């Protein structure tokens, strides 16, 4: 992300002291309820997800640890790696981050979820290269909703006090923490890099993408034309967007976040390239999409 004019680009300023060292933390304390099997142990591309995430982080960080719950201490997979055990149970990812900050308060933490099958060294390196140590954290903006992605984030030592206070006030959502802090936000160089895998269906889809059997989610250029109520609510007759939405149904959800569209999908029809089409029809780059509110001819 290019710095805004008038703002100081930290990369051009010689720091008085070196920025804190970066340690890696791979989160593997999740319950994997939706997957119904331990996500950390899932094999993708011949490697268990935890092992792959650990290798990605340890390739770039001075030291790397796996964050585990107390009851996972003896787990054969997790105990192969250096671990940091949650100080307190039931807090989820923020508890793992806080425990790591307590164990090594001098370090900045590159925190990763273990279930990011599309994550690459290139994306992580981009995050570290564009990190702003003067901010509490540096994170990517979600391709899906424009909010910070908490589970591939650099947490600076300066965030520790605020994280502790956040937990003490009964809050646990790391995403809300990032939203409410002066987080340095970056656009993802690869829009799919942080797509995670929570269900067996998503795993099957991810594996066929990684095996080259299905196309990866790519940014498509879509033109959307607005008529009548939608034209008024969007404040424009058309717009061209870069989107990863692969169906009109997903595109409508995305547009509802950009514009105050209150009509429900069930009230609408949709047309692609001037012909009615199914909500689940595939979208291609260059398509023109029209959402059709209830009609009133005659």
């Amino acid at each position, binding site marked *: 992300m290019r710095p805004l004019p008038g703002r100081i680009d930290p990369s051009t300023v010689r720091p008085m002291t070196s920025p804190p060292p970066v340690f890696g933390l791979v989160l593997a304390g999740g319950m994997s309820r939706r997957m119904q099997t331990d996500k950390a142990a899932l094999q993708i591309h011949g490697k268990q997800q935890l092992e792959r995430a650990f290798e990605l982080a340890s390739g770039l960080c001075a030291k790397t640890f796996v964050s585990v719950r107390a009851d996972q201490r003896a787990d054969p997979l997790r105990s192969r790696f250096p671990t940091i055990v949650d100080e307190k149970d039931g807090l989820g990812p923020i508890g793992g981050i806080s425990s790591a900050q307590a164990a090594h308060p001098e370090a900045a933490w590159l925190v990763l979820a273990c279930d990011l099958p599309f994550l690459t060294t290139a994306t992580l390196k981009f995050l570290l290269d564009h990190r702003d140590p003067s901010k509490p954290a540096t994170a990517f903006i979600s391709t899906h909703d424009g909010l910070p992605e908490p589970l591939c984030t650099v947490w600076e030592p300066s965030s520790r006090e605020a994280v502790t206070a956040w937990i003490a006030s009964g809050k646990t959502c790391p995403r809300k923490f990032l939203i409410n802090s002066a987080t340095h936000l970056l656009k993802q160089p690869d829009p799919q890099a942080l797509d995670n895998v929570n269900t067996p269906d998503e795993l099957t889809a991810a594996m066929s993408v990684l095996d080259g059997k299905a196309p990866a989610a790519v940014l498509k250029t879509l033109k959307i034309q607005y008529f009548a109520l939608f034209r008024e609510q969007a404040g424009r007759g058309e717009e061209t967007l870069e989107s990863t939405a692969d169906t009109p149904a997903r595109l409508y959800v995305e547009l509802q976040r950009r514009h105050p569209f209150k009509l429900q999908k069930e009230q609408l029809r949709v047309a692609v390239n001037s012909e009615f089409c199914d909500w689940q029809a595939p979208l291609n780059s260059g398509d023109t999409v029209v959402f059709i509110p209830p009609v009133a*001819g005659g």
Partner: protein
Amino acid sequence: MTLFRFSDVNLDPAAERRALEDPACGGFVSFEGWVRNHNEGLEVRRLEYEAFAALGIKEGDRIVADAIKKFGVERAACVHRIGSLEIGDLAVWVGVSSRHRGEAFAACRYIIDEVKHRVPIWKKEHYVNGDSGWVNCEACAAPGHDHKHDHDHAHSHDHSHAEKA
């Protein structure tokens, strides 16, 4: 022959009718939809029609062609206004000519019913009280709105209140 079109200027029913004249036909039926000064208890001052023309013409053509085939009539056409209309203006015109009257009535009714429910055209009413609204759109989206509209646009839209056209 043009089966369906949009017009942004006033319609001339006599000219539309002439295009359907056919010496083989013994009957002609037309329907005119006019702008009414009230709707759902509100006094209407004027209204605007807006269409997604590229798809609207295709869908309108399909409706008129279907009617000709389904009812075995000789000729049929429909034209719908877009733009700003005043009370009493002609909003939509349907004409059918056929050998006998029965199928002409049926085809005419079929065309206007299908056009109202399938062609992507929207009506914004401007009321005497200063409000305005897109018909069939705005009330449905209000929170807690429990008025049961049938939004199956294909065939079964059935309002309990009297319709204009």
